[in-house]
């Protein structure tokens, strides 16, 4: 690393940037957790509430909660009226979403808007008020949410689930997960399944909403130009009255029995075949090998200089893409590739060889060094993306650990070839999914 860069005359190694951002954490007395990243370098402010439930039979009902909340509140019941208000607040965005973190089901309600200091008039208080209002004073119709909005959101999510097949890459990955995690609620998407949606009535959605308010772990994360104490007071004012709630200690993913490799083959009229392979890593998010596992995954397939891209695409010309991704909250590694339909066996063989190469430490010093540098670059660049910092801080908070990027930096630098090998020493292929054109229809 250079000690001094002429492109950055004011920056020297080890000195803090003039506009530094530091994470502030706080807990309200009712157990609600607060993560703040105050920084003047950003022009936007955002605040996001994340509530943690479990994936299961109610996944679809739970995912409908944020979708319905952002349609209107008791005071602003019409969506048209609500969106007009947001437009007039210089395009403030109010969004609801759901995601998976291992077998936890996260529901998000997010507000983003331009900082008051840039605008000709202040808007934050109004925008924050709207955000809190859709959550705390939703549009209720009898004993449930507004039936019309609920039906519209149910239909919209259902069409989106139906439409996943339009994106063959995403579809192939979901089909692989369905096979690999059959019987585990993780096999569903964060929005459940079409069948679940069909069976979800207003009572189930109302029940999920009440669980959110009454007992589910909640984290509120905010970033941008703000005073931390002031923001904590605002969050306390909005949520301090909610009932107390316990934390939800991290549980490692369940060990899965290793058996023979599952194989799923699907025929579809596609030009490019999709090969997706699911591996059990034998390491998880709370594991001491987690950082080494991230390095191992990156050596394998995170970058264009990783083994998969080099060997499967560049040398063998077998694929347009070949990459791997790691989900330590599920102890899962996925390799996905888009290949020539006649090259399935060759591609699978080369992919398996690359996983073995990482496991046996069969990669060069340069490859390890480049990978670590790339990860360090990502870690440093993360400070420019508040949502990424807050996302990582959230994951660590769930593990009961503080966000300490400087420690991670040092630990990453110290990862050795032996660490990488150890992290993959228990890796095992679990499921292979292959989608291709039926034999007779090959062009």
């Amino acid at each position, binding site marked *: 690393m*250079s000690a001094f860069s002429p492109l950055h005359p004011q920056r020297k190694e080890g000195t803090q*940037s003039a506009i530094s951002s530091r994470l502030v954490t706080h807990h309200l007395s009712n157990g609600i957790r607060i993560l703040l990243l105050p920084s003047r370098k950003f022009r936007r402010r955002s605040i996001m509430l994340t509530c943690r439930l479990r994936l299961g039979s109610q996944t679809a009902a739970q995912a409908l909660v944020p979708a319905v909340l952002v349609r209107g509140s008791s005071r602003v019941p019409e969506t048209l009226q609500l969106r007009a208000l947001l*437009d007039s607040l210089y395009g403030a965005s109010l969004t609801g979403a759901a995601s998976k973190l291992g077998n936890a089901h996260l529901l998000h309600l997010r507000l983003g808007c331009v900082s008051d200091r840039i*605008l000709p008039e202040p808007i934050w208080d109004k925008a924050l008020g709207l955000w809190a209002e859709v959550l705390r004073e939703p549009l209720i119709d009898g004993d449930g949410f507004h039936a019309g909005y609920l039906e519209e959101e149910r239909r919209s999510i259902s069409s989106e689930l139906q439409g996943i097949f339009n994106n063959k890459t995403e579809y192939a990955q979901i089909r692989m997960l369905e096979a690999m995690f059959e019987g585990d609620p993780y096999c569903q998407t964060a929005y459940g399944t079409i069948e679940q949606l069909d069976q979800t009535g207003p009572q189930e959605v109302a029940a999920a909403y009440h669980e959110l308010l009454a007992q589910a772990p909640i984290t509120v994360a905010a970033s941008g130009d703000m005073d931390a104490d002031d923001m904590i007071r605002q969050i306390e004012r909005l949520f301090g009255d909610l009932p107390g709630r316990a934390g939800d200690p991290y549980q490692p993913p369940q060990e899965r029995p290793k058996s023979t490799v599952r194989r799923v083959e699907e025929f579809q*009229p596609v*030009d490019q075949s999709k090969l997706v392979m699911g591996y059990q890593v034998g390491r998880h998010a709370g594991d001491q090998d987690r950082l080494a596992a991230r390095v191992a995954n990156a050596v394998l397939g995170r970058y264009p200089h990783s083994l998969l891209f080099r060997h499967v695409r560049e040398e063998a010309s077998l694929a347009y893409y070949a990459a791997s991704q790691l989900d330590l909250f599920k102890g899962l590694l996925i390799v996905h590739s888009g290949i020539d339909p006649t090259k399935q066996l060759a591609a699978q063989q080369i992919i398996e060889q690359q996983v073995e190469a990482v496991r046996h430490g069969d990669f060069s010093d340069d490859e390890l060094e*480049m990978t670590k540098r790339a990860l360090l670059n990502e870690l440093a660049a993360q400070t420019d993306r508040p949502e990424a910092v807050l996302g990582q801080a959230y994951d660590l908070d769930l593990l009961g650990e503080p966000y300490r990027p400087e420690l991670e930096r040092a630990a990453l630098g110290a990862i050795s070839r032996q660490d990488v090998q150890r992290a993959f020493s228990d890796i095992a292929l679990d499921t292979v999914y292959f989608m291709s054109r039926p034999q007779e229809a090959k062009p």
Partner: protein
Amino acid sequence: MIEQRLARVDLRHYHSQLRSGLTVSTLVLPGFAKTYALLGVRYGSMDTQVPVDGGRRAIPAGTAHFLEHRLFESKDGNAMDRFAVLGASYNAFTDYFQTAYLFSATSEEEACLDHLLTFVQHPYLTAAGVDKERGIIVQELRMYQDMPEHRSWNALLNALYHYHPVRQEIGGSEESVAEITAELLIECHRAFYRPSNMRLVVVGDVDPQAVAALAERAFPEPSGPAPGFQPPAEPTGIRQPRVDTAMAVSVPILEIGFKDPEPSTELRQETATGLMAEALFGESSDLYLELYRLGLITDGFGAQSFTGPGFGLVAVGGETVDPQRLEEELWRGIDTIRKSGLDRTRVERLRRRQIGQFWGLFDRPEALAHAWLGMAFHGQDLFQLPDLLASISVSEVDHRLELLTPAQASVSVVRDAS
């Protein structure tokens, strides 16, 4: 070097044109850890002719994209490796107007920038390398053929335009890339990769003088004029009103495109068109909410205006369970608004929304660099947007509704083949 300031967002822009003809723009974002650099060549899929001896010769579709793929190959191996050794992330892309090479780095920025400016000047194009790349590109083209939005969009451009090269796929076809040779790529590199035909945009907490000095060292000599672009004579009317594509989909796609009979890349007109499309089809419009209520659209529905030299269009659509019904409802909605005109207060609100989006751009270095480069290649100045948004009148926006006539429209539908 010219300085521009946007005090409200604490941003300075420095602009200079070097002796070689290279244009350098540095956007200084204080406090950002990352330096993002984008080197754009005004050479995209639209450039279907290469200048030769005062004239022009046709080249196969997909040549610019092929050259982008091959440029990472150097005499001593892969040019990407150098970025990897420096710990930077890097990429490249080709679109209708441009080929761009980029990196993002939090250290060794100077070495990265030097490498970016150097490797694009030294192609290493061999017959064997070109043949190997063809296999990868064919895989890429096949992947796009399986993407319904991609197919719909290309079919739409094909239906709207008779001759303009925007109707061709960016990557070309399996047949056209079969014709591409190392000699051709060398010829195109010589013709298009000239500093007078390139722009460098750097975003980050950097010293603009140092950036310009480095670019000056990398490109010391002038190298002749930019090849320019002559759009072919294009009829004002559409080529065909409807186009259907059958492929493997689980939900159909409907898109309606409106061809602008008098296209212009003038920023004022483009901004007015964008506001009109947002007012009519955006997620806070009556029409959007009505279509959503009817279950005809999902969050993916939207409209965009797309303009370049010799062409301009507005496209609206997305995935839908019932393309026929969606089409009818869209025409009904367009008819109603064309009779009543746009709601004045709504246009005022959207003006604010777009100003907010403009300021938000300065938190995202990548998006800022891309917006800047794309606009600069069209002779537009991003910094003029706030004033423009403030000064555009409702009647100017209203006037753009004239675009939305059935005579200027093509409809593209993608349905399941089985």
